[in-house]
């Protein structure tokens, strides 16, 4: 039976349990003079039964999801003849994928070694068996749960607190999902990175000047290792981000100042949402714009002035990224600028300061922590931005600080290394996770510091 069908079945059983529990409590209450005699409303009794019916079986289903495949795979592999067993882990994956593909019918059986076909058939039968036994088990468990829940119903049974307790725990788990997600990110990138650092030393990765991961798969050639020096990527990322911030910070900040301090109501109601539009445009659109409009434009402009601007220049990618970040900075800056109390402005204006003097000498210094926090968040966003650079920046890792040249970034390399069908455990794919680890750590520090600054700033004026 398909898993989705099992789920539907379980939900149906749960609904049935609700109905039964509610009916039973009503039947108990009626002779005693109505539901006022019950400790909890009938619907709570119903929910209580439904929860008994669902929760154990759902936990079981979850466990099956996690472990069933692993158990089956181990059984299949151990059933293979020793001759077919590959020596190393890469070959192991190859054989296993083959069996898997035969079992699911992607590869035709003809022409495959007999042992593999047998293994595939064994796998198929195991899967069928596991699915059917799961269905039976789940049904039994939920029916038992249903019966148990039914039995517990009495007039005095405190169904409401019991149900609420379960609900509170579920809410708690939902809230903790954020922690699980962070943990998942850390574990997934850390685990693969450690594997990567076994083959490429951490020092070579962080301080190496040469990045050419393509050579790593040709293990027969010289120089197959030691080409994972990430410095050119870090420099490229910083260069593109610097260009972006160079555009976004002044424009974003000045728009925020103008909108918050000068603009009349009409200008604000029009210009603010119009600028926000920039924030709602997907990054892939910016990437397209950068690659097909801005980059050729800049190249032609450059050649008019006798400048050689690469068609994948950091300037084009960074410039468009800057445009993308303008609304981000302007809305954050707008928040912190309007949070500066009016009394500060009054104090300065009453001294005879002009409005711009007030803004430059009082409002901005007062809002500075918040603005710095906002800019740090924007930097973190620029560093982690992917699609614009994938589409408009280069692939080749040049170590340069010239924005007219082509550079590549951390995110570009992650995408290049991981798209397409690669063996998962090759140093190439693992390198992507090591880059991901770097990216995550840098943005994590930026975010936490920035969020802390902004929070402290808000508290100051609350």
């Amino acid at each position: 039976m398909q898993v989705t069908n099992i789920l539907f079945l379980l939900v149906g059983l749960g609904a049935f349990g609700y109905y039964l529990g509610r009916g039973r409590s009503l039947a108990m209450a009626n002779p005693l003079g109505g539901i006022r005699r019950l400790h909890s409303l009938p619907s709570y009794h119903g929910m209580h039964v439904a929860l008994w019916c669902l929760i154990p079986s759902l936990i079981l289903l979850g466990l099956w999801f996690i472990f069933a495949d692993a158990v089956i795979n181990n059984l299949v592999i151990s059933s293979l003849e020793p001759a077919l067993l590959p020596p190393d882990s890469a070959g192991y994956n190859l054989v296993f994928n083959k069996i898997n593909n035969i079992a699911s019918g992607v590869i035709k059986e003809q022409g495959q070694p007999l042992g593999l076909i047998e293994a595939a058939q064994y796998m198929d039968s195991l899967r069928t068996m596991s699915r059917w036994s799961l269905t039976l088990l789940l049904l039994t468990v939920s029916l038992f749960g249903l019966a148990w829940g039914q039995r517990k119903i009495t007039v005095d049974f405190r169904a409401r607190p019991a149900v609420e307790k379960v609900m509170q725990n579920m809410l708690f788990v939902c809230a903790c999902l954020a922690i699980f997600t962070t943990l998942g990110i850390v574990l997934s990138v850390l685990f693969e990175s450690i594997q990567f650092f076994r083959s490429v030393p951490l020092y070579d990765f962080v301080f190496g000047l040469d990045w050419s991961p393509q050579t790593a798969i040709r293990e027969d050639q010289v120089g197959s290792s030691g080409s994972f020096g990430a410095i050119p990527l870090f420099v490229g990322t910083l260069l593109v981000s610097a260009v972006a911030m160079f555009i976004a910070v002044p424009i974003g900040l000045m728009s925020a100042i103008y909108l918050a301090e000068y603009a009349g109501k009409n200008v604000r109601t029009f210009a603010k949402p119009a600028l926000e539009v920039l924030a709602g445009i997907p990054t892939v659109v910016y990437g397209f714009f950068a690659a097909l409009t801005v980059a050729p434009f800049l190249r032609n402009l450059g050649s008019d002035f006798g400048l050689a601007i690469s068609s994948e220049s950091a300037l084009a990618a960074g410039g468009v990224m800057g445009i993308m970040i303008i609304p981000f900075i302007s809305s954050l800056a707008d928040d912190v600028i309007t949070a500066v109390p009016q009394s500060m402005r009054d104090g300065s204006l009453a001294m005879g300061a002009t409005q711009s003097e007030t803004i430059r000498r009082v409002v901005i210094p007062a809002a500075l922590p918040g603005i710095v926090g906002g800019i740090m968040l924007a930097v973190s966003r620029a560093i982690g931005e992917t699609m614009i650079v994938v589409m408009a920046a280069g692939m080749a890792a040049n170590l340069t600080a010239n924005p007219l040249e082509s550079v590549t970034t951390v995110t570009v390399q992650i995408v290049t290394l991981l798209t397409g069908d690669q063996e998962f455990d090759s140093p190439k794919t693992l390198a992507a996770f090591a880059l991901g680890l770097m990216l995550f750590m840098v943005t994590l520090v930026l975010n936490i510091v920035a969020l802390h600054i902004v929070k402290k700033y808000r508290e100051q004026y609350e």
Partner: protein
Amino acid sequence: MNKVDQSTHKSKENTSEQKLNSSPKQSLDLDKNHVTVGKPFSDDSKMTMRNVDVFYADKQAIYDVNLDIAKNEVIAMIGPSGCGKSTFLRTLNRMNDTVDGCRVSGTIAMDGENLYAPKLDVVELRARVGMVFQKPNPFPKSIYENVAYGAKIHGLADSRVDLDEIVENSLRKASLWEEVKERLHQPGTGLSGGQQQRLCIARAIAVSPEVILMDEPCSALDPIATAKIEELIEELSQNFTIAIVTHSMQQAARVSHRTAYFHLGKLIEVNPTEQVFTLPEHQLTEAYITGRFG
């Protein structure tokens, strides 16, 4: 002093006296054509206001105020909350410009110069008419920078030495110097409430204004700090013209030479302070100072 103003002021005074004579007992209700009782005018005036109306969008906040503020006097403005006294004070250095939809009609003049003339620069005006606010609002800078702020923006100091001198003098005048001279470069926000308010006063007098407006300067302070500020106002009145809005009648009685009583946007009575608190002319004034409403 402006000639035209002088004449209108004379005629107004006459009418008010006539009115006063014809109806010695004013009612508690305000009629439309009310006239300020007492002595709103002065021969040695620093600021003159004639027929001042203030509107917020469509709502009128101040009705036809006529008043003179004399040189080097302390004038207190009292009245129940929402009576428009703070609004009126803010029109005197055009701080009401920062409020959207605020409109002023009539004339407000300082030394005969109309404050609402189109070519007048508010920057200059506000340098001449300083202001201290209800809540102490030091800038998030050091004590030194707070006091030096005005001198810096207006370019009043030619050298660091000049600036140091201005800061020290202003802090001394605000009787704050002894308390802060050891920590001039610590943030002004770290001072106590009363010290912050004196810092704001020091900041205001650092540019040597002619008039200082004070908008309930002690309402956020404890009694001891209040006493210090009141003492300070007394001293400052030797050099500056001061208009102070206050919630506390005792304060008005302690610090001011003249007192103006506002009620629902109208200026009811202006008289020497002792008279207002001992023998008010208008029934509304009497009702207010005897605590029948507040």
